[in-house]
């Protein structure tokens, strides 16, 4: 299994569109998604499957599962452990 890097060296720091729950932002490839969310006041990442509350990352280290979002390929990502890549689209898990 080959591990694909999220971005080649040339791509890092390029500006790319980032769509979060239908809203379009501009971001840098290779930057931290969690930091981006904070800076842009995106305060919800997932919707709780039982209570339907909007939740945000709690632990920042892949434990709580509340930062889960679905990407453009239908894969569930933990945004606290993911970096921004080209043309990313994210939707709240549980939405």
């Amino acid at each position, binding site marked *: 299994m080959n591990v694909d890097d999220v971005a080649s060296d040339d791509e890092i720091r390029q500006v790319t569109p980032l769509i979060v729950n239908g809203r379009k932002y501009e971001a840098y490839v290779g930057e931290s998604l969690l930091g981006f969310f904070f800076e842009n006041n995106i305060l919800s990442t997932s919707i709780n*499957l*039982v209570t339907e509350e909007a939740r945000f990352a709690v632990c920042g280290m892949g434990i709580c599962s509340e930062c889960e979002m679905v990407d453009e390929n*239908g894969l*569930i990502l933990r945004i606290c452990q993911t970096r921004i890549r080209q043309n990313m689209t994210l939707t709240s898990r549980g939405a």
Partner: protein
Amino acid sequence: MTLMSDSDVIIIGGGILGASLAFELTKESIRVQLIDRSSVGREGSGATAGNLHIQAVHTRRPGQVIALDNVRLLPLQIAASRLWDDAEQELPEDIELRRTGGLTVAESELQGEEILLKRRHEIEAGIPGEILSSDEARRLLPELGDSVQLAEYCPLDGYVNPLKVTPAWMRAAIRQGLTLRTHDEVLNISKVSSSWIVKTKNGQFTCSKLVIVAGPWMDDILSMVGVSIRMNPVAIQMHLTERLAPRLPFLVQHIAEGMSIKQVSAGQIMIGGGWPAQYLALGETSDISVESMTGNLSQAVRILPFLQKVRLLRSWSGALGATADEMPIIGEVPGAEGLFVAGGTYAFTFAPLWAKTLLNLILKRVPAVDVSDLGIGRLMNASGSQRAGDNRNG
């Protein structure tokens, strides 16, 4: 200081069989004591998928050598089916009983013929169902994969939440007068004239009727009364996904391979079918087999392709108290008056039926179904037919 007390019936085993029987007995004001080495519903009854099989079951789990006689089980299944509806009425707690029906699918012509054959047997036994072509099956369940060629739909299949039903029966029995002893281990059983004496860690208890519904421990407990049988218990696996919005309204099974898939009340999809865990560790966790996991899940993805993107959350194993002939066990123990057993395969589906049957046998009434061929005599070793309670030969 040891406890001593006298009951009419002592039940050894606090799974679904013990709980449902305790409920039936206490309903008739019979004094009952139930003993379990751990807590209620901890073993097979808590680990099972909770399926209620009313259409004919597949004859083999993966790796199972002897095919079971699924035709023989049909009249018992239809009887159990009616009793499950009663159970839901009688129990005040929500046991999450769902009777939305079940599909059995075939992926080849040969498998399709097996379904047609099984349907003919079901018709004789009075079990409702319909044969569906692949188009009809897909109209009923659009999620079905392309490889499904033929299917049968039976409206009576369903499931119940195993974590709720055993405690619910047990609590209802306690309200009706059951004495429950959990975390208590049976050390010794003897017979004095017509009374059984059960010695546990915490005391000594007597009764006139003794019932052993201890799952894979049945042979252990029976050996205490000098009855020697062989159980062939096996640990099987279950796989559970994350919660999903409702999209699978029926149980989905495969005619040939061990596969049963359903979406439970909480929205999670449970995938099982009798795939074996690595080995059986009685009373402990039996390690999950990766091969069984990939095997079971590969089939599931073929039949329901949407599962490809769904996340597996957990897997676990549970002990199945199976016997060499893979059939249920029920009845009074030959040569041991007042000693009754129940267990073997499909105990979960048959639980309310075995409860009523044992009740009738204990009260010397004629049971509603004929179970004479399912007695434990067939499993007893030749030397094991010494009189129970006769300790001279040890």
